[in-house]
């Protein structure tokens, strides 16, 4: 069985070093022939040297592809193109998999007859998290974390909070051949936190009638730096996610509009403003507000693009 572990990376040599360190310690059976593919997305730091050093020490082949178009989706797609495996396992550069991660994932893929699997993504906090964050699993979604502890088959539309993120996603190449690769108009690029590329891929896989399984035994740890333990980070994340959803989601329903945006959108933004005014310190309300704002900005951008295309 040939497996390629793909890591997109951008300017995070030190974290990447830790990720590779944990990857080369994977315990896999002798029947697994595997490699590591690092997709270097415009790194100007130590990344090539870190990869080179890992390649020297590792008992598996470690290669590097360069992708100059900025964006995690471009980087993942470049890794897919360069990878030799018939199974592709994605991790991010801020992830440290448990030593049984790959073996467990391959096991689940076989046993469940699945086409795409993923698992738990638990936080590795840089500093002790504030209590509002540590005790609130709902906020885990915004940190790319996933703490659901039961095994599930995913369905579309999504039935609950269970998701599979690119930080730990194992998929058959045949599946990607059928439904396509990551959507390059989604995904983080540079400073923007435009997200949703993973949900988009999983939606396509599920709509093609293929099997997607979440298994908590597939365990990785996700580095959470202290900047992400602030409220500001959550605002930006939600805004970016909503913006991406508006730009790439289903077309908006027709209706009366003002300045190119439907009227109901103004109403719901106003409603969120009022709710926020009632409890300005509630993170839940702040998040709801930035969600509406992001949707509006996204719709506005989309309307502009559509107008110029029509012309």
């Amino acid at each position: 069985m040939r497996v390629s572990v793909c890591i997109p990376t951008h300017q995070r040599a030190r974290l990447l070093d830790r990720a590779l360190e944990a990857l080369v310690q994977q315990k896999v059976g002798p029947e697994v022939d595997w490699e590591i593919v690092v997709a270097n997305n415009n790194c100007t730091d130590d990344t090539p040297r870190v990869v080179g050093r890992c390649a020297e020490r590792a008992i598996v082949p470690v290669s590097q592809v360069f992708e100059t178009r900025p964006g995690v989706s471009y980087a993942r797609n470049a890794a897919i193109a360069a990878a030799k495996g018939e199974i592709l396992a994605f991790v991010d550069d801020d992830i440290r998999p448990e030593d049984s991660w790959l073996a467990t994932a391959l096991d689940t893929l076989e046993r469940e007859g699945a086409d795409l699997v993923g698992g738990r993504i638990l936080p590795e906090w840089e500093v002790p998290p504030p209590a509002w964050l540590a005790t609130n699993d709902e906020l885990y979604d915004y940190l790319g974390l996933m703490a659901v502890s039961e095994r599930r088959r995913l369905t579309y539309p999504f039935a609950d909070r269970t998701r599979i993120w690119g930080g730990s996603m194992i998929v058959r190449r045949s599946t990607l051949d059928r439904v396509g690769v990551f959507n390059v108009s989604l995904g983080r690029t540079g400073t923007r936190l435009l997200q949703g590329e993973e949900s988009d891929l999983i939606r396509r896989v599920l709509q093609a009638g293929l099997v997607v399984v979440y298994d908590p035994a597939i365990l990785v740890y996700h580095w959470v730096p202290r900047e992400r333990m602030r409220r500001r980070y959550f605002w930006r994340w939600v805004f970016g996610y909503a913006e991406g959803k508006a730009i790439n989601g289903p077309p908006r329903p027709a209706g009366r509009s003002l300045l190119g945006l439907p009227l109901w959108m103004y109403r719901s933004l106003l409603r969120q403003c009022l709710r926020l005014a009632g409890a300005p310190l509630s993170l839940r309300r702040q998040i709801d507000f930035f969600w509406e704002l992001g949707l509006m900005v996204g719709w506005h951008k989309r309307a502009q693009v559509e107008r110029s295309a029509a012309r």
Partner: protein
Amino acid sequence: MSSGAETAPLVSAIVILYNQGHFARATIESVLAQDYQPVEVIVVDDGSTDDTAAICAGFGDRITYLRQPNAGAGAARNTGMRHACGALLAFLDGDDIWEPGKIGAQVNAARAHPDAGVIVVDGVKFEDETVLAPTLYFGPVQQHFAERGGTEMITECYEELLQRYLIHSPSQIMIRREVFSRVGPWDARIRVSSDYELMLRIGGAGYPFVFLADALIRYRIVASSLSGPADLREFTWGLDGFLVFRAHAAFADRRHCAMIVERLRGMTRSLARRAYYHGERFDRSWSRRYLVRLAVRSRRPHLVISYLVAAMLPSWIVELASRVISRPRRRSAPLHDVRSER
């Protein structure tokens, strides 16, 4: 295909060293000599200025050697954790020693109690070749084993921990990595008692602790260590206790916050009293300095001021005054000070 869960879990041993070159070899060898395998050994040199680096280099690739500028024990353990791949993490301070069966016993306990967050073993205090005390347990844990025997005790001990620390040394503990995902890493701002603060968070998150009866570590008594000269250590720990409880109050609910406030008040009173009498016996200028620090650190100067005034006045005035105002002393409820048992 072999699934990771069926094989023996990898244990990461995180050894921290700070100018302990003369003990480092014995410490690291005690990890390499563990009966249980697989164990990965991660040694963090917290900015030592002695021959620690050379001694570690002697172990070659049997250990992972990391070095950082001096930042304290908590920060060093965090550095070690960032490079650890194991599902179970065991910690060892540079002057202590593990018995060969230590990790094996803890792994068995971790398997038997999958919900437990922390596995603690007992140990002995020693100096050179002499055993000074046969147990590191005290208080309710010692009492439990003395009265009921048995080889292990599993307990949810958060409220007990708020009253007093139950563990003598970080070298006694093994923690599941998942626990750190829930409560966060060691708090590097607390220099000496970061282990107490972490245990409060783990206990507060509802994880049970397992205490094993077997003495499987050797805790070295040295005249001077991170905590300072032995006879003044309880005072250093006392000041650190304020940092511990202040950091922890951010995580505690209202009822436990009230317990913490009460505890801090008690600690302030008791430390002020003991520092004053210690000063009268040995060194008054030390006690004056300490009482000023205590007044600031505790943020309760009104509880310290009378002792400070007494420590400043000439002794004969204090003597005279105490004879004139010889009222029966009111005593508050019995108080336990941070680590006064150590």
